[in-house]
């Protein structure tokens, strides 16, 4: 067991380093045999999943992990910190990555037959970037990982639909560069006033200079930068095109993870770099965020109704779902915060399942327009059932995950005395019914004149397994939301709002 003991101390950094090295080795593996790439990615993702689970378990049982890179102590060296928040988000990244990885074998073979090796290489590098963003405790290191994840996402999107993918990717690149530059500028401002780049160190140094204009400007730059990254409503222009025109597997990965990690980063900067008093009382940034989020919830849902391309509809629905996460965060009370954080998990599960279904339907029939889905329920029963479960979950039917987080968000709004947000959540749920019911209606009750020529044919097993697992988890966490809430989110929300300390 000595070999295992040797690596247990280094698990935090290995979750970043292993996908990084594996990503660079992928071309070599693919050079031996192209088919080996997928097994290699599976092996890596499985290892990462085990490591992140172990990290989260360690955090729950014995408290926050601090890992000093190269043995240098924090204010000087780079530190990796895993607390409940990023342990939780890392586990989501690893899990969704594994699911999309399993799914990708068939879908990539059909959609990108000549780009299997680059796809898997970039896939692993994207996981590296997202892992690094979540796990790091140093804000400049954070910026570098942010750019790694953005650059790989641009590449993945550019591999999509011929002609459209590259334009979508270029638009995203311009918006993403503005966002990343704003974040870099914010980091520079904070470095100028504190002389530190370590998050924990900075949180201690900042409160004495909260009346400094530079700190206020830094907060503004961070909020605008992250709003672009998560696709908050007025800054969402890159998101629908990028999600629509990426390859199916990449859409599922990017929709499931990118914006969620952006939301994580926003939470981290609001509550860990700055303190809750600063964002809630001094600048009232949290309140501004709730209103922006409420607007995003409504507008995203309304725009989703107008779409006929299923992936584009799901992309607009993502904009509204991001609104839920940020609404919960902005409410800044324990219950609302739990709802928002729980929605990070829920939305990754639901949205990933929905994009995987859209990809499976496209794989089998070549159709993405939802008016052509008539009668698909009889042709692809398992796939469409997954869509039904995930769709009901998006609407927020009791017994699914969507209900739990909406329930907590509504309770949080009532606690904060903001009844209007309860109404916003209700209206948005009704709009969700409108646009999902259109699809359900076509799938289950429509006459199959467009798909008549296709015989009853289910997607391949490697596509069905991840979709079914995600659908089962949608129901599991809907019925047993107690586990994530009790073990992770409740202590976490208290800690973020400065009410209690982390265990």
């Amino acid at each position, binding site marked *: 067991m000595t070999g295992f003991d040797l690596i247990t101390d280094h698990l935090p950094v290995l979750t970043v380093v292993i996908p990084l090295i594996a990503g660079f080795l992928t071309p070599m593996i693919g050079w031996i045999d192209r088919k080996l790439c997928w097994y290699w990615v599976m092996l890596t993702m499985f290892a990462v999943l085990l490591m992140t689970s172990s990290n989260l378990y360690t955090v729950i049982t014995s408290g926050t992990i601090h890992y000093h890179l190269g043995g240098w102590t924090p204010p000087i060296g780079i530190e990796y910190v895993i607390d409940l928040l990023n342990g939780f988000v890392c586990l989501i990244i690893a899990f969704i990555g594994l699911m999309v990885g399993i799914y990708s074998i068939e879908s990539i073979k059909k959609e990108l037959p000549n780009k299997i090796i680059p796809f898997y290489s970039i896939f692993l590098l994207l996981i590296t970037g997202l892992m690094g963003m979540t796990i790091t405790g140093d804000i*400049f290191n954070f*910026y*570098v990982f942010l*750019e790694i994840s953005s*650059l790989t996402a*641009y*590449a993945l999107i*550019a591999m999509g*639909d*011929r*002609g*459209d993918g*590259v*334009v979508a*990717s*270029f638009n995203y*690149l*311009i918006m993403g*560069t*503005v966002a*990343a*530059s704003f974040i*870099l*500028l914010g980091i*520079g401002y904070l*470095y*100028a006033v504190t002389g530190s780049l370590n998050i924990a160190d900075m949180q201690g140094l900042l409160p004495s200079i909260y009346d400094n204009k530079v700190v206020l400007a830094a907060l503004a730059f961070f909020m605008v930068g992250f709003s672009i990254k998560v696709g908050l409503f007025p800054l969402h222009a890159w998101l629908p*095109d990028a999600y629509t025109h990426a390859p199916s597997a990449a859409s599922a990965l990017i929709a499931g993870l990118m914006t969620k990690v952006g939301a994580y980063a926003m939470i981290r900067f609001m509550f860990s770099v700055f303190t809750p008093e600063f964002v809630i009382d001094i600048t009232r940034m949290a309140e501004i965020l709730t209103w922006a989020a409420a607007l995003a919830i409504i507008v995203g849902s309304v725009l989703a109704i107008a779409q*006929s*391309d299923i992936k*584009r509809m799901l992309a607009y629905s993502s904009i509204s779902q991001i609104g839920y996460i940020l609404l919960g965060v902005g409410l800044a009370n324990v219950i609302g915060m739990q709802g928002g954080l729980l929605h990070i998990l829920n939305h990754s599960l639901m949205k990933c399942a929905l994009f995987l279904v859209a990809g499976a339907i496209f794989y089998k029939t*070549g*159709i*993405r*327009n939802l*008016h*052509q889905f008539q009668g698909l329920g009889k042709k692809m029963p398992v796939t469409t059932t997954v869509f039904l479960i995930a769709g009901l979950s998006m609407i927020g039917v009791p017994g699914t995950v969507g209900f739990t987080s909406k329930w907590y968000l509504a309770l949080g709004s009532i606690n904060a005395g903001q009844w209007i947000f309860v109404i916003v959540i209700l209206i948005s749920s009704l709009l969700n019914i409108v646009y999902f019911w259109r699809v359900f209606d076509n799938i289950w009750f429509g006459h199959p004149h467009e798909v008549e020529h296709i015989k009853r044919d289910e997607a391949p097993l490697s596509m069905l397994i991840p979709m079914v697992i995600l659908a089962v988890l949608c129901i599991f966490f809907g019925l047993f939301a107690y586990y994530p809430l009790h073990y992770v989110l409740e202590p976490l929300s208290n800690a973020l709002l400065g009410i209690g300390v982390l265990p």
Partner: protein
Amino acid sequence: MSGIIEIISAEFNYWIYVTLMMIGFYAMIAKKNLVKKVIGANIFQTAIFLFYISLAEVKGGTAPILLHGHDGADVAHEAVNEVIYVNPLPHVLILTAIVVAVSTTAVALALIIKIYQEYGSLEEDVILAYRRQLQPEFSEYARQKQEGEQ
């Protein structure tokens, strides 16, 4: 009037970086040519690098290279205290950020080549018009339908 000039000249490095940044930002938003957008992004990022570098500057400071460091331990300590160095950390950060900016530019240029191959133009208007004509609702369905008709 002289007050304004004093304010500007006292911290002229910040004024220059803000001006450059706004020029870059304007180019990214307003220019229709995709290459000009990338140039704008580069100016924008370079402005931020200048901001970092000017942060590091200490009046009368030398390059952060240890002087007389090899003369033995005691001498080295005194020598370090005597010399004023500029702050090396922002320089190091910006070296990393330059690498990031270069890779962003590389990806952007690669995308531009693909866009040019696809649409035969780098003007945003032309590309947009071409896409509209190709696919009325920007949707996969419209394209499939069009392909079916042909």
